[in-house]
C-alpha cells in the first residue's frame, strides 16, 4: 500500500440545506487529483445519496473517504435508528421518509438502490437503536 488519502466529514443532521457539501468537496478533490470523470460521477452520486440519507433518516453522522491506488472507499457511519429490514430498504420505491422530505425532492426510495447501482461494492451494517454503517467501494 503506497499513497493513501483520507478525508473525514461530520454531517449535520439538522441542516437539509447543507446536505451534499461533503459530497461536493470529495468531488472537487477527485477532480483535482485527476480521477476519471465517470468514476467521479459514480462516487459523487453514491456518496450524495448516502449523505442525504444520514440527514433525513439518522440525524447526521460521519463520512470517511479513502482514496488508494486501486479504489475509493466511502464509509458512512451514523448513530440513527438503524434499518429493520435491509432487503426491504434496498427495494426501489421503498421509503419511510416523511411527506416533508418528499416535498424537498427526496424520499422516492431510490437512494440505497442508487448507491448499489453506482458502486462496485456496498455493504450495510446496522443495529436497531444503535446505528448504521454503510461501506461503498468504487474501483479505479
Amino acid at each position, binding site marked *: 500500500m503506497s499513497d493513501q488519502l483520507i478525508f473525514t466529514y461530520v454531517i449535520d443532521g439538522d441542516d437539509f440545506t447543507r446536505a*451534499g457539501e461533503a459530497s461536493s468537496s470529495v468531488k472537487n478533490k477527485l477532480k483535482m487529483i485527476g480521477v476519471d470523470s465517470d468514476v467521479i460521477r459514480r462516487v459523487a452520486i453514491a456518496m450524495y445519496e448516502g449523505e*442525504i440519507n444520514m440527514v433525513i433518516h439518522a440525524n447526521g453522522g460521519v463520512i470517511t473517504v479513502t482514496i488508494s491506488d486501486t479504489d475509493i472507499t466511502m464509509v458512512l457511519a451514523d448513530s440513527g435508528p438503524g434499518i429493520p429490514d435491509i432487503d426491504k430498504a434496498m427495494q426501489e420505491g421503498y421509503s419511510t421518509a416523511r411527506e416533508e422530505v418528499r416535498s424537498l*425532492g427526496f424520499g422516492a426510495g431510490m437512494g440505497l438502490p442508487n448507491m448499489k447501482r453506482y458502486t462496485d461494492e456496498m455493504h450495510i451494517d446496522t443495529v436497531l437503536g444503535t446505528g448504521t454503517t454503510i461501506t461503498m467501494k468504487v474501483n479505479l
Partner: protein
Amino acid sequence: MTIREIQEALDAQFLYGEELAELDADFVFSADMMSDVLAFGSKCSVLMTGLCNPQVVRTAEMLDIVCIIFVRGKMPDEHMLTLAMDKGIAILATEHYMFTACGILYEHGLRGGA
C-alpha cells in the same frame, strides 16, 4: 442545441450563466424527485424541474449537468444562484408548465437521456 437556443425556445430568462450560453446541451431529464434524477439522469446535460431548493443545484452538480431549467415561474433564491455560480451551472426560468416546456424542447430535437 445550445443553452441559448433552449432559452429562446422556452421564452426563458437567464438567472445565471449567460456566458455558458454557447454550450451544447442535447439530453434533458425532467423530474421533481431528485432521486429519480440521480438514478436515471446520469447521461443528461440539462435538468428541467418544478422543484426549487438548493438540493436541485447539488443534484445537478453531482451529475455534471450544465443547465437547470425551472418551470412554472419558479424562482431560485440568492443562495441557490450563488451555488450555481460556484459550480458553473446555467440557470433558466420559464413560465411554461413542465409538459409544455418538454414538448417545446422535444419539437426542437432534444431528447431524454437513454
